[in-house]
């Protein structure tokens, strides 16, 4: 065990800094403000610190470690050139309060990204300011709210979400002050148009939905759903969490959506970093564009008075404030470092982004097929139950371990832990809530056929294990099953020198 707070080196054993520019005794600090007791931090030298974090890293599982089929999270390979680019001083060492003429390259890339995202989603305008998917949802819902206020339709206080929606959807709309109307999905997980019809009225502000839905299925009635919402004057909001499935094949714009958020950390490969940073730009149709948080990157033809840089093709780039902007959702211009990485990622594909989505969908279908095949060979087909019946899935699919639980007392979490012992990250479990004992599997386009074949075999091997073994799993991991109840009952949230 390596613990940061166990390191108690000599004072000043860490990073050696230059001295202050004036003698310490000449630095003026009013006595009342002076810190009396220094923080009880560890003292650790660089060699020890490097070893500590390397030790920690060995106890952590990333895409680089192995297959990471965490449904809904699109855990695809993160190209390393993107990290190299993000460290260049032209992004790492620039300040958001610098004037436009000092950041023409940054503005060029922002403008290109706005354009690219608008094209991919069939939207008219984009802002890159939101820093995560959930913040993108909130931002778009705020834009819709201001749009209605501007039109004088103040009564629109309801947002509709299907019961299979990501938890962030209702949470974001509630944060903006809306009442949430949850509608049940059909047996096969798809949207229930009758249920939708029964709840829309002149108080409907928006419907939030993802397509493909959280079961990995394409909502074939989506255009009709849009019509139903539009008929009562509501807006359609597209949760872009599952955007990786559809680029170049269809778009939220074609489906009738008015606003969309993108998870750049999913579709465009910003590394997930153990929980973040992400980036959650939003795109909107032209009627919502004046309400976007500002500023957004804009351009005009170069004039004689400009001092062009190597970033200026025929245009001068500048920040532009939308007319009825809702203001800011992050103090600066969003996660610029993430935007730059995703720009590098998109450039790798260009118009072939369609190919990326096709491979994501192909891999998901292939894996689903291979799991079914392996189950048949092992005589376990009864336990491979689709979360929802479907001919083809999109970028992910769900399986229900309900029957396994019933027959053998082995639930989705047990299977998940068994997979950890096989050297895999587990799929998403217990989501969506509409599927009993759900496992949600998303392989992404960056996994090879060999990896998928192997995973299918191992998955069935896990199902074949006796229940006792699975209840004991995992046994090969740095720690075994972690007691989360103990954690919640005996809150120990920091190093405080007290041993519990």
């Amino acid at each position: 065990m390596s613990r940061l707070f166990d390191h108690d080196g000599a004072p000043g054993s860490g990073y050696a800094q230059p001295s202050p520019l004036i003698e310490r005794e000449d630095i003026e600090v009013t006595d009342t403000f002076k810190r009396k007791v220094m923080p009880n931090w560890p003292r650790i030298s660089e060699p020890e610190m490097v070893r500590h974090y390397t030790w920690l890293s060995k106890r952590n599982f990333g895409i680089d470690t192995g297959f990471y089929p965490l449904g809904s999270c699109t855990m695809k390979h993160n190209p390393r050139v993107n990290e190299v680019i993000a460290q260049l001083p032209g992004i790492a060492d620039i300040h958001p309060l610098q004037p436009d003429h000092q950041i023409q390259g940054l503005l060029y890339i922002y403008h290109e990204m706005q354009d690219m995202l608008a094209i991919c989603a069939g939207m008219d305008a984009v802002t890159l300011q939101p820093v995560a998917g959930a913040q993108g949802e909130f931002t778009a819902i705020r834009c819709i709210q201001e749009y209605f206020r501007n039109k004088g339709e103040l009564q629109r206080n309801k947002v509709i979400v299907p019961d299979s929606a990501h938890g962030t959807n209702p949470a974001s709309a509630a944060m903006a002050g809306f009442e949430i109307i949850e509608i049940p999905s059909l047996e096969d997980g798809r949207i229930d148009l009758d249920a939708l019809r029964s709840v829309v009225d002149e108080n409907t502000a928006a419907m939030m939905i993802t397509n493909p839905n959280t079961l990995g299925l394409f909502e074939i009635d989506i255009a009709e759903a849009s019509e139903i919402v539009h008929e009562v004057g509501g807006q359609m909001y597209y949760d872009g969490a599952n955007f990786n499935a559809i680029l170049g094949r269809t778009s939220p714009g074609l489906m009738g959506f008015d606003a969309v958020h993108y998870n750049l950390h999913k579709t465009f490969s910003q590394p997930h970093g153990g929980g973040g940073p992400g980036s959650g730009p939003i795109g909107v149709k032209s009627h919502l564009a004046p309400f976007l948080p500002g500023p957004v990157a804009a351009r005009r033809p170069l004039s004689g008075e400009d001092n062009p840089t190597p970033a200026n093709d025929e245009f001068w780039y500048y920040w532009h404030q939308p007319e009825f902007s809702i203001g800011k959702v992050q103090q600066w211009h969003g996660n610029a470092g993430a935007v730059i990485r995703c720009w590098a990622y998109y450039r790798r594909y260009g118009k072939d982004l369609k190919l990326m989505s096709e491979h994501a969908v192909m891999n998901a279908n292939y894996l689903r097929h291979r799991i079914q095949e392996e189950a048949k060979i092992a005589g376990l087909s009864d336990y491979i139950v689709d979360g929802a019946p479907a001919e083809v899935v999109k970028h992910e699919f769900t399986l229900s371990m309900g029957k396994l639980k019933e027959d053998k007392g082995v639930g989705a979490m047990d299977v998940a832990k068994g997979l950890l012992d096989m050297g895999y990250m587990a799929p998403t479990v217990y989501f969506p809530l509409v599927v009993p004992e759900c496992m949600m599997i998303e392989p992404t386009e960056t996994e090879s056929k060999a990896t998928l074949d192997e995973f299918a075999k191992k998955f069935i091997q896990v199902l074949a294990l006796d229940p006792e073994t699975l209840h004991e799993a995992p046994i090969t991991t740095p720690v075994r099953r972690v007691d989360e109840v103990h954690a919640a009952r005996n809150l120990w949230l920091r190093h405080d020198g007290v041993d519990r």
Partner: protein
Amino acid sequence: MTDHLPNLGRENEMLAAMGHSSMDDLFVELPDNVRCKEPLALPEAQSEEEILADARRLLGSNIDLGSTVNFLGSGLYRNFVPSSVFQLITRGEFLTSYTPYQPEVSQGMLQAMWEFQSLITELVGLPIANLSVYDGSTAAAEAITCAVRVHARKAEQKNTVYISELIPPDRLSVIQNYTQGSELIIKSMKHDENGHIPLEEWEKASGSCAVYVEQPNPLGIMDQSLFSAKEILGNHTAFIVGIQPVSLGVFEPPGNYGADIVVGEGQPLGSPVTYGGPIYGIFACTQPYLRQMPGRIVGRTIDVDGKEAYCLTLSTREQHIRRHRATSNLCTNETLIAMMGAMHMALLGPEGIETLGLRNLASRQLLQDGISKLSDVELPYGDSQHFNEFVIELPYPAQECLDYLEKFGIIGGLNLSRWYPEWDHRLLISTSDQTSKSDIKILLNHLSKWLTSKSGVVA
């Protein structure tokens, strides 16, 4: 080029295995009216080397702060981050992992975040910290909504919060967006001529749901009135203090003078400026706010064998469980950047954070002393204690001064009319540990030349 698709060229084989003949079969259910009719109107794919060349050209067109003599800060500061931090966070096990939903294979990140929480609580003087929110502005906004949830019932001034009038408009705008859903009334607190909040302003705010002020304030000023604020505000008003974390190497942490919630922009510890993102927001609080706090928090626990282990805890506050009744919609956060902060804090240690604070103080003091000797330049808050930035008032428009300095490769600070329109003769000048004696000399030299040239014109 599309060189990240391992199955490129094997499509037919894989499709055939499934009984399909073409990729179109996998999209067969898409109704005709939603299908793309045209290919994406995007350029050709590029190779890694072409992208790198374009990135170097485009980003090379930006003026990076390191190539200038820089005095721009105003919320983001370029302190030196030791090289080992950058090396370690690009380890794939950290970089390419996600939220630790499976704690058995995520102990590394979980323990690192628990240690981050520990470092932050020690720094700010409060018992609880989460593992970061997006940035300083959203931290402030989330703190206010958290406080309102706690105090809504008992507060005498219903649904009302007070915020210092000096808050930069962009930060205020974030707070307004986050709070408008609950129809909060935001009232403003005034400052006296020293940049301090007078007693009557605190008395006015007493009985509201929350007060949000910053220490040092956005003009770099330390305010002693905060030391007695909690007593005036009382138990039903949350006292929220926004901090610059490096200042706590030398100044008393707000947890020691009654703050209920401490938030702040974590960036000066561990992260480059990066055009304002990704950075990380600090969020720490006392016990009564714990169950209403936003974001993720790690607890230390045991595994089935009784071995030390870590996991996410108190998840029942969060959106994936509570949905529309969650304390926040926060999901993806800034974990990796917070980890950079933890690494930087670890390498500094208690003596190092003090030295870092002193270096910031010293460079500001040296520059401020120099400027005070220039005739025609006023230091409107010169008598107050500052941290690493201060306001100067010029006899001519601040923008002209900045334009002049830029010709000599100097970024002279922030034109304060950007925040407060009537302050068009004022600059906010910031220093950091990267400010050198020669930087200060260069600025003083050119500032004085500009003043001479201007007074010459006037004469």
